[in-house]
């Protein structure tokens, strides 16, 4: 670019990506030099799971699906991408092969910013690095919350089932006693998580823990919880 002016199209697209919103004209020019634009038709593959990472992609216009092939060969769609979405960013920074396959669902216009020029730009522009760190940190926080939630919820369901199985009528001669170590082991977890699950069930008024007794108050409620399999 002799006069340093970017073609309007590239400039507009790059500016909309939050990573690049703080960059000055020089930086954007460098970026544009590393960017290429392609159009894909429906059913065409943009990137393949397992291939070495090529760079960061921006979907300017169109609709894409992100999927993985399971061990059994079945395709599992993880999510869809819409205009303005950025994808494959994670692979750029971890130098890992593509984590999923991205396929066009309709005619789509896509920008690819190559990995090496992008990494070099990050070294030169701290604001870019900050943006990237912020985005990734946000993703990590979200995932941590999700994992905690998933793990607790499934323990809750298994706990509900265990309680229903083990419960005996108050009038029956008590035979079965369990320690928290045994219970948590049976549920495939640790006493800490077991305690949290017990607290959750108590909050929902389905059980009450009174000293050495776990009392089932709401059998039907527990049955419902027991049936929520992740």
């Amino acid at each position: 670019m002799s006069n340093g002016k970017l073609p309007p199209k590239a400039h507009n697209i790059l500016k909309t990506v939050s990573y690049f919103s703080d960059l000055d004209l020089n930086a954007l020019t460098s970026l544009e030099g590393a960017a290429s634009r392609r159009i894909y038709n429906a059913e065409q593959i943009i990137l393949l799971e397992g291939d070495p990472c090529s760079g960061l992609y921006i979907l300017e216009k169109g609709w894409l699906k992100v999927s993985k092939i399971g061990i059994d060969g079945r395709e599992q769609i993880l999510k869809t991408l819409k205009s303005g979405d950025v994808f494959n960013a994670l692979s750029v920074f971890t130098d890992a092969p593509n984590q999923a396959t991205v396929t066009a669902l309709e005619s789509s216009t896509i920008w690819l910013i190559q990995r090496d020029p992008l990494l070099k730009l990050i070294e030169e522009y701290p604001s870019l690095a900050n943006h990237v760190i912020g985005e990734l940190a946000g993703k990590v926080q979200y995932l941590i919350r999700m994992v905690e939630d998933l793990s607790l919820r499934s323990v809750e369901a298994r706990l509900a089932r265990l309680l229903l199985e083990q419960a005996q009528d108050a009038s029956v001669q008590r035979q079965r006693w369990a320690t928290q170590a045994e219970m948590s082991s049976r549920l495939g977890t640790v006493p800490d998580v077991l305690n949290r699950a017990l607290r959750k069930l108590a909050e929902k008024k389905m059980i009450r823990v009174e000293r050495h007794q776990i009392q089932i108050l709401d059998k039907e409620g527990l049955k419902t919880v027991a049936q929520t399999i992740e």
Partner: protein
Amino acid sequence: MTHFNNRPVPLIDLQKCDGCRLCVHACPTKALDLRNGKAFIANSLACEYSGLCEAVCPTQAISRLFEIITK
């Protein structure tokens, strides 16, 4: 032999107990003490089944037993 009654207390595995006294200090109602170098429930009436002794024991020598009943 353990007697299952209306106010059970935590079980202490004397083979695992190494007499570190952490449970004695952790108990909010001072129900535990040491005897012959091992922990025991000195004051069973004071025991509230809080589980702090169980949680703090570094050798997992203490276990509270629970029964699951329908109300």
